[in-house]
């Protein structure tokens, strides 16, 4: 094609674009052409955020919301790497990552005057805004384990070799170490006690990376118990009648939390705040609880008794949870990862 032809095509494209944009209804011009970038986990979380936060925001402001899906480690790497020139506005991370990100100046400190700050249970916005509350409990095969187990039951000789653990590093592994340390009369600040106790569970039946595989193994009787984070697990249990989930009492379930972070100096701070308000709002938090069994952090959420029974949604329930010293845990991650590789997996 000649140069002349090319430029003619370009001109036609330009004209067409102008025609199309001119024909659009003139809603909320203020954020038109702007894009909010939100980093989160894929699957149900993305679906609910899209439906309850992104779509209403797009309708209200004329902006576009772009999701970047992946693990929280990817997002941490991205916001640290881009600290001079961030391209992500909102990042969902784990409870143990948020205080670190705030300390390193990567995210905006939660604003105590923001309405969505006040809606969240007191003392929950550590580092970023608390998005949901879930606890590490025990999924178990009802045929092998007669009643909802306590943590100590995992160490009973009849279950030797039938306990599964998640891959490490991760909240599940840190939680199990915290529990093991307490069963040994110490806490997570004594890693020798934690690893010594946890090592008694080896050889572990399997390292699970997704629910399908662990539930299949549990249904087959190859795994008796596995520490797991409530939420997805409880949702998935509806199709596995032989698997139960126990919130232990001694110590209580380990609190794990998703956090919503506003990235510091991000390109669209106003849109990010609007998104946060919708994500932390009653509608989205109710859907999180009803569909994903993620406990709401918003105290205005009212749940039906059936849903409430399965999620952590009252201050009393939160009081019973075991809280780890996450900043300490994350500072130990590197050493613990190697110890886990060697002592728990026997690599």
């Amino acid at each position, binding site marked *: 094609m000649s140069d002349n032809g090319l430029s003619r095509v370009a001109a036609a494209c330009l004209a067409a674009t102008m025609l199309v944009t001119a024909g659009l209804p003139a809603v909320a011009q203020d954020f038109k052409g702007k894009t909010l970038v939100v980093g989160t986990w894929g699957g149900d979380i993305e679906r609910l955020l899209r439906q309850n936060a992104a779509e209403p925001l797009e309708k209200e402001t004329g902006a576009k919301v772009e999701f970047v899906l992946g693990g929280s480690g990817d997002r941490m790497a991205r916001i640290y790497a881009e600290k001079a020139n961030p391209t992500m506005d909102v990042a969902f991370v784990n409870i143990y990552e948020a205080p670190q990100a705030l*300390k390193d100046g990567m995210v905006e400190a939660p604003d105590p005057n923001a309405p969505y700050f006040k809606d969240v249970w007191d003392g929950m916005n550590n580092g970023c805004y608390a998005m949901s509350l879930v606890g590490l409990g025990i999924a178990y095969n009802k045929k092998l384990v007669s009643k909802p187990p306590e943590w100590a039951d995992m160490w009973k000789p009849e279950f030797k070799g039938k306990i599964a653990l998640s891959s490490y590093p991760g909240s599940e592994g840190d939680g199990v170490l915290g529990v093991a340390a307490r069963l040994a009369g110490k806490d997570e600040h004594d890693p020798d006690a934690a690893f010594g106790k946890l090592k008694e569970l080896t050889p572990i039946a399997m390292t699970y990376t997704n629910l399908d595989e662990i539930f299949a193994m549990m249904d087959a009787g190859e795994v008796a118990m596995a520490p797991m984070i409530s939420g997805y697990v409880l949702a998935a249990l509806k199709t596995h009648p032989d698997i139960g989930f126990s919130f232990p009492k001694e110590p209580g379930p380990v609190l794990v939390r998703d956090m919503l972070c506003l990235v510091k100096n991000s390109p669209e701070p106003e849109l990010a705040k609007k998104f946060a308000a919708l994500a932390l709002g009653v509608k989205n938090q109710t859907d999180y609880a009803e569909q994903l069994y993620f406990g709401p952090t918003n105290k205005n959420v009212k749940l039906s008794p059936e849903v409430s029974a399965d999620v952590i949604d009252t201050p009393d329930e939160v009081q019973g949870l075991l809280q780890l010293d996450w900043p300490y845990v994350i500072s130990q991650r590197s050493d613990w990862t190697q110890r886990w590789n060697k002592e728990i997996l026997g*690599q």
Partner: protein
Amino acid sequence: MPPSILLLLPALALSAVVFLAPFVWLASTSFRTQAEGSLLLADGLSFDNYIRLLADPFFLEVLLRTLAYSVITTILSLIVALPVARFIVTRAGRLKGILLALMLVPLVSGALLPSLGMLHLMGPLGVVNGASRLMGLPTVKLLGTPTGILIGLVQSFLPLMVLPLVNTLARLPADLEQAAASLGAPATAIWRRVILPLAMPGVVAGSVLVFCATFTSFVTPQVLGQGHIATFGTVAYQQAGQVLDWPFASALAMVALVMIGLLQVAIAIGSRLIRRQEAQ
């Protein structure tokens, strides 16, 4: 500057942006450390990451294990690929195109899909063990074992061996074999003394590709190893994606790159020596 060098410019420019720049960044990060109690990189350069890597026998073990997997995968791929390549070249006839296209499928489908497929084949409740169970045979543990990972690696990287071999074997003149046969050489001697020596360039090229791909592989050991088996790729991922110790992960990646670089140099020198010997 000869004008012909302009032909290289687009590729060079692309490499500079998508390979060289990140590579320099990776190399420089590997000499940094994170400040105490922070994920931010501290000022100053040091060898701390490399010292930690060398001082801990765990990483040496991981290195040796990864090397062992790479060597075994290369040998197994060669054993499987030679007959396949020979068949494609000499016997496939009109099927040749179809067979080559089938060989390419694992390459173009990425590492994840085949690995996930393998997961269902090899799982304790998967196709293989399910069939054994039905027939009353004992089950075999494949997931989370070196055997399982090696099966997955050979499956993933076999095309990298087959394609160079097909290329070389296709160029061997058929008269050479006929001449050897007419002089009374048995088939084994023809293979050993005619086909294999002449196919050496393909064998070397395929072996280098499979070795390097295995050495740096991540998805296959991660998915099929089930977290039980640490290789260079999985440890680097663990450090970068989960521990968030980016400088240390960079050092791990640098070691892998240097190892591969050394291998390339060794092969270049080795093949030059062989050629010189042949010339004499």
